[in-house]
């Protein structure tokens, strides 16, 4: 038996008895950031490939949701800060060893770009939209010429944003469940999957839907592969990592993780997509909702479980 008690009665709020420094704000932000990354990645990619008129949902329509997701995500991030009035300090520092620092700078690039891209394609949602002021119209025509470099920046910064949402967690030494660099790729894949799902939902072009259903299937396969690898890594590691993995392998979060994230969030939508590709008609909103739900639950559970995993005691 080994028992460790704090006999001086430490009860620091959000630290004791179990660390809970992060509540709903961070997983919500990680989810919204991941979705935005997925949307912007596909928008930029298919623009570069010259498919803007073929895959209109991917290039023009769906990315409209990215600035909304990013803005809501930033609001969640801001709510999480405890010393709110000093948030600008993030932008007086560039610290490459702190993922939160370069993530803040990535958001500084990606948010305005997503807004500009949405402004350029606003007629897709509101066909009668009129910018009213000449200066805005001039600005839009001016930016139109630079769509290609913008698309490149979007693709690259979307990958950085998607990876960052995972690396943010894996940089924290103290939480063995997060200390795996595969988390960056897993969250990126999950964000891409959610992005592809939203594109499918908004698309009216059967060819585009099919393409994104196939892409989504591929990404779900990759995600499952990453999840298996993540657990293999933990189980081949030290006691701290094994205990962390045990939370999902028989421990208190086993049922929610495997049912909500893996079965409902990945396997069932994958089966539905296969049936869809084979010609069965299932409302597209079902797999899309499941994928978004799974993607959110993945971040929710990883954020929560990471705070339960530790080196000491």
């Amino acid at each position, binding site marked *: 038996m080994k028992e460790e008690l704090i006999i001086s009665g430490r009860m620091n709020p959000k630290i004791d008895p179990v660390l809970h*420094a992060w509540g709903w704000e961070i997983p919500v932000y990680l989810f919204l950031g991941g979705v935005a990354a997925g949307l912007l990645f596909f928008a930029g990619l298919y623009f570069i490939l010259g498919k803007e008129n073929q895959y209109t949902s991917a290039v023009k329509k769906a990315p409209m949701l990215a600035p909304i997701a990013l803005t809501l995500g930033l609001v969640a991030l801001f709510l999480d800060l405890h*010393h709110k009035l000093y948030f600008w300090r993030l932008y007086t*520092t560039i610290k490459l060893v702190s993922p939160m620092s370069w993530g803040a700078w990535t958001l500084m690039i990606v948010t305005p770009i997503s807004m500009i891209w949405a402004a350029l394609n606003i007629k897709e949602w509101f066909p009668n939209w009129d910018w009213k002021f000449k200066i805005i119209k001039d600005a839009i025509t001016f930016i139109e010429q630079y769509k290609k470099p913008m698309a490149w920046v979007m693709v690259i910064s979307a990958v950085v944003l998607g990876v960052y949402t995972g690396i943010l967690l894996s940089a924290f*030494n103290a939480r063995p469940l997060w200390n795996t660099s595969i988390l960056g790729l897993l969250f990126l894949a999950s964000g891409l999957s959610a992005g592809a799902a939203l594109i499918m939902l908004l698309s009216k072009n059967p060819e585009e839907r099919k393409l994104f259903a196939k892409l989504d299937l591929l990404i779900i396969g990759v995600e499952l592969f990453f999840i298996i690898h993540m657990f293999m890594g933990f189980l081949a590691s030290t006691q701290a990592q094994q205990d962390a993995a045990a939370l999902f392998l028989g421990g208190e979060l086993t049922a929610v993780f495997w049912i909500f994230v893996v079965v409902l969030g990945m396997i069932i939508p994958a089966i539905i997509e296969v049936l869809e590709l084979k010609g069965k008609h299932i409302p597209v909103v079902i797999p899309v909702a499941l994928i978004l739900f799974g993607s959110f639950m993945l971040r929710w559970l990883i954020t929560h479980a990471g705070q339960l995993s530790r080196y000491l005691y």
Partner: protein
Amino acid sequence: MRYAMAVDTKKCVGCSDCVVACQTENDVPIGYCRDWVVESTVGTYPQLETEIRSERCNHCDNSPCVRCCPTGASHYSDGGIVLVTKNKCIGCSACIQSCPYDARFTHPDGYVDKCTFCLHRVKKGMEPACVAVCPTKCMYFGDLDDPNSPVSKILKTRKYKVLAPEAGTKPNVYFLI
């Protein structure tokens, strides 16, 4: 200069005087603490072994909190003491998440707070409040680079351990065993 502390687990009785001294000296808000006492019991009755440790921030040489801080508010100060600059801290909790010792907390005013090794006292040549007040004199403080400091001397003669060395933080609080 490398400040370090040694706590004699054989002499500590767990009275928590260090905790109260710290709260008083540093105006720690009510309900919070920067140091705490752990009683660790190992074995099966009747073969039980108890160790009592007064714990606090380890002022690590390789501090994950300093690395993860996005604004540079967490930093190394004189002699490797890890401090937080209040008006640079945004209260994002990155340092709290990265500390294996759970030595940090969010002050009710919003910034992150923690043990400072009482740098304000040390600068005046005094010991940290917890060390000064200890009734069993079980704590030693000083400069590891100075072979005559109390902490260097005691570490030469006694067996010791640090907490969670596998976390790779290179902690500077030693526990004499």
